């Protein structure tokens, strides 16, 4: 299938070669080092190739070989817990092979070919049965957390000719055969390949129904995302995109997490590699690394491989979805991927439309985000891919092309604000700019599983926050003295909500993850304080007096005083609110005071 040609022109990551028969999307090997690339356009007998590796040292007249296949990933047991580059080469194996620097032209298998896996064939599957794409052939214990379901590749169907008995097999061993309707025999293995630019097929789309619980209050309680949804985290540098994505990777109740480091810092991936094996999943108690997979193409790695890396992550995600899992993909940052597109299109001389981006930016982004979703798989189970992309707008300007296109595509938008980050209000999610289209769907879950008051209290808190914004404007014009006691109280409880509820430090062990129960109780406590305080004002208590109450400082520390498990502690605090305010009431309900209060009300 290979066809040979020669290099004509090298310009950064773009190479033009004389390759008359190569197809668009076909893989090409270039130069004496065998650098890998992919045909992205054709002009007469010439192929325009984007190269995944640094093209330094390539020469015109050097060899170009079209390989007859598209860029694809290997899918099978042994991927979880690993770190791969943008081309799915395992970085740890590369480290062993060539040392600390990444060498070019290295071909390394994603999966250990020698390792043997304990395969157990599916019980109900008999020889002669009709099997098709997605049929579960059996299982392999990937690790203590995840059972790997071995599926029929999506593009094969027919009659099961044979299937091996339970036993130990390597990924290249034939575990069975299928005879298709033309009589051709297809061999089955524990692993298979799939081209990354083609979405893996599924039965049909289904509605997302369950919130993705991230343990982050501003997300779960205020701007929820559903499993199978699409979310974005835009923000200027230093606003907290990466930390928030790492928090989701750590604490969310997904079964599989794929972390795509796309054009960002090397040390951030090192941090994940260092910390995840030591952290345990709050739900399974197992090391987080067992459910996690990293795709790493850092900012200093070749730009074309960066463009590919998001597709590699997505395809692996879809593969686990097809096994019936809820998968979360975090991509940090989608802007770097878009910039890779821009760089390639710029070198091709394509007409830029906005800030140098090609006209197809929007459609490329939306086609990619469309691969997320909750589906009925080919074998009739449910699985989902939730996609959360960080967006890095130049100068923090949300009107730039990548942010604005993304905003049109996604369902939950967690807008990070520089002002909040500068004041070290983390997560710096701006409650006025952010939105979620999933609040009603999430409410159903909260009402069924946690408490029926969720929606009411959440809305009350948001209302307080936005009212306080108005009030702050007044204060900034004429000073706080212009506010009534009630208004002052609104302002101050909004502040309490911001500091005691919205602020949540990823670095604080007690607070890094917040269970839904704890989230709800804290929300309820805050609103309770507001309501009781408002009552006191009505009977004439001066607002200054109210603000002096030790409760106001104490409430700001509840989040670190009580762990997610210590629900009882928070419930006690809730019960203590009434007596606390009752005591205040008796103090202020003395005859003199209450006359004053009446005069106030009339």
């Amino acid at each position, binding site marked *: 299938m290979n066809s040979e040609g020669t290099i004509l022109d090298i310009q950064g990551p773009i190479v033009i070669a004389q390759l008359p028969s190569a197809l668009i999307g076909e893989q090409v090997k270039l130069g004496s080092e065998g650098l890998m690339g992919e045909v992205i356009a054709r002009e007469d007998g010439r192929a325009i190739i984007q190269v995944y590796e640094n093209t330094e040292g390539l020469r015109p007249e050097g060899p170009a070989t079209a390989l007859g296949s598209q860029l694809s990933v290997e899918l099978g047991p042994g991927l979880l817990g690993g770190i791969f580059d943008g081309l799915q080469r395992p970085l740890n194996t590369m480290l062993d092979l060539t040392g600390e620097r990444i060498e070019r032209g290295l071909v390394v298998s994603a999966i250990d070919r020698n390792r043997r896996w304990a395969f157990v064939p599916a019980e109900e599957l008999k020889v002669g049965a009709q099997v098709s794409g997605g049929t579960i052939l059996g299982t392999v214990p990937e690790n203590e957390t995840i059972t790997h379901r071995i599926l029929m590749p999506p593009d094969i169907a027919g009659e099961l000719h044979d299937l091996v008995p339970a036993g130990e097999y390597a990924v290249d061993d034939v575990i069975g055969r299928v005879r298709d309707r033309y009589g051709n025999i297809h061999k089955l293995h524990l692993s298979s390949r799939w081209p990354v630019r083609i979405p893996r097929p599924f039965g049909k789309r289904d509605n997302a129904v369950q919130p993705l619980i991230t343990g982050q209050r501003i997300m779960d309680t205020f701007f929820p995302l559903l499993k199978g949804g699409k979310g974005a985290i835009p923000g200027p540098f230093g606003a907290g995109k990466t930390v928030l994505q790492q928090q989701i990777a750590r604490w969310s109740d997904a079964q599989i997490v794929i972390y795509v480091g796309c054009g960002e810092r090397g040390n951030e991936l090192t941090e994940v590699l260092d910390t995840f094996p030591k952290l345990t999943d709050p739900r399974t108690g197992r090391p987080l690394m067992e459910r996690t997979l990293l795709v790493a193409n850092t*900012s200093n790695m070749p730009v074309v491989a960066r463009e590919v890396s998001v597709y590699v992550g997505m395809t692996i995600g879809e593969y686990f979805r097809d096994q019936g899992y809820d998968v979360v993909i975090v991509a940090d940052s989608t802007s770097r991927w878009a910039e890779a597109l821009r760089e390639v299109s710029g070198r091709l001389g394509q007409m830029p439309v906005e800030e140098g981006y090609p006209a197809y930016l929007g459609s490329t982004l939306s086609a990619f985000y469309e691969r997320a979703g909750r589906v009925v798989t080919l074998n009739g189970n449910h699985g989902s891919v939730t996609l959360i992309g960080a967006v890095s707008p130049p100068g923090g300007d949300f009107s730039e092309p990548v942010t604005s296109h993304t905003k049109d595509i996604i369902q939950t938008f967690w807008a990070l604000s520089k002002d909040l980050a500068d*004041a*070290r209000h983390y997560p710096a999610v701006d409650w006025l700019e952010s939105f979620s289209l999933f609040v009603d769907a999430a409410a159903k879950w909260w009402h069924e599983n946690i408490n029926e008051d969720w929606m009411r209290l959440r809305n009350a808190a948001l209302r307080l926050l936005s009212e306080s914004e108005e009030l702050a404007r007044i204060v900034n014009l004429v000073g706080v003295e212009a506010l009534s006691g009630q208004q002052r109280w609104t302002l101050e409880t909004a502040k309490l909500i911001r500091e005691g509820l919205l602020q949540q430090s990823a670095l604080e062990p007690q607070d890094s993850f917040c269970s839904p129960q704890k989230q709800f109780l804290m929300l309820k406590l805050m609103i309770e304080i507001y309501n009781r305080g408002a009552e006191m004002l009505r009977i004439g208590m001066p607002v200054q007096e109210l603000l002096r109450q030790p409760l106001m*400082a104490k409430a700001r520390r509840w989040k670190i005083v009580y762990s997610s498990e210590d629900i009882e502690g928070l419930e006690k605090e809730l019960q203590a609110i009434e007596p606390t305010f009752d005591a205040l009431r008796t103090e202020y309900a003395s005859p003199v005071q209450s006359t004053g209060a009446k005069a106030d009300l009339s």
Partner: protein
Amino acid sequence: MSMLEYRSSAWARGGLLAMRNVPGVALGDRVAVRDHLGNRRNGQVIRSSSEMVLIQIFEGTDNLDLERTWVRFLDQPFELALAPEMLGRVFNGVGQPRDGRPPIISSLARNVNGAAINPAARAYPREFIQTGISTIDGMNTLVRGQKLPVFSGSGLPHNRLAAQIVRQAKLLAYGDDNREGQESFALVFAAMGVSHSDAQFFEESFEESGVLGQVVNFINLADDPPIERLILPRVALTCAEYLAFDLGMHVLVVMTDMTYYAEALREIATGKGDVPARKGFPGYLYSDLAEIYERAGRVRNKKGSITLIPVVSMPSDDITHPVPDLTGYITEGQIVLSRELMAANIQPPVSVLPSLSRLMKDGIGEGMTREDHARVSSQLFASYAKAQEVRSLAAIIGAEELSQEDNQYLKFAEAFEQRFVSQGEHEDRSIFHTLDLAWEILSLLPKEALTRLSEKDIEAHYLSTGTQ
């Protein structure tokens, strides 16, 4: 092939030289150009096709007489010869001596572009470097292997700050007296487009701190060819990598000024006709800067480290300008200088709110600095941010109208700037001094306002005399 000289130049402009009909030249290869005066210029192939080869000339293309320009393709990538004798030397942007001494001869030479560090090979930086500067140590801690730029503006004292860091940086773990033995410390100084007087200032400052013998200088001054600035940081970092990962030294790299570097890149990009993204800078500026900045760090099982302090001047003090903006997206934080503070005579004028150290969290706390460090820092940020709000309020309604608590915030902000931020150019504060000072200033606020601190912290450190 390296013996052949070509004279087939098609055109030359803006640092670019195009050659026709030179077959089979490898991208990135080094080129030697001899101009009509017999002077040698250095070049590198940046595009190669069968018909045309495009070369960037580091000395620029001014006064090139195409008829009398001879070009030799050296058939080798751009490499730098490396040897321990580089310490104490001064080179230009392409690595040739500037100090009148002989060039470095070595059997070891490396491609100046370097190869990317495998992310799985990195070791996470976590060793606290005490700079003796309160705003950095206390609130934006630097660790070994970090890349932490200084964002500045024209006329702001970024050079003084960088020099003070060089002078005072030490590892706490090795005691107060010095770096862990002089021999394992090295400084790589990369100057791009700086003035003679600034270069002089640095030299004197290195001399004064007694590190001259440990410094490798790569100097391109304001009146040197701008295109040379494109290769200079790569040459300097190739040297730094050698010192750090071959010789096991802890290398501090000071790079100034990255904005001039980026402007040189823009010049070449424009000449090539690259599609501009913002402010005329090419879309690949991010990747290009990342190739430089990401060379800092630590590597597993290797002794040395590269800590990188680039100086980035913000044109018109605009932090959203592409160069500081993209830098901030790549580096592990930033130290931002402010003209307002400087006008108020606060030195060094570090504006803490937009400053950040992303690697701070793992380098501080019990056993490294002090147990309360993270919370004290967080409280300082929160209180100072609040104080700024109060200030703008006071500007509108007048300080007399402020509440008592708000007045306390004004006092706090005043003390914070005058006593915590402001410190002498030669004042070297220990981290403990810095933290104690922070408590003194925080104690100007009522205890109830210090919600980022634990009750235990307040019990242990709050100075009750501070209030009122």
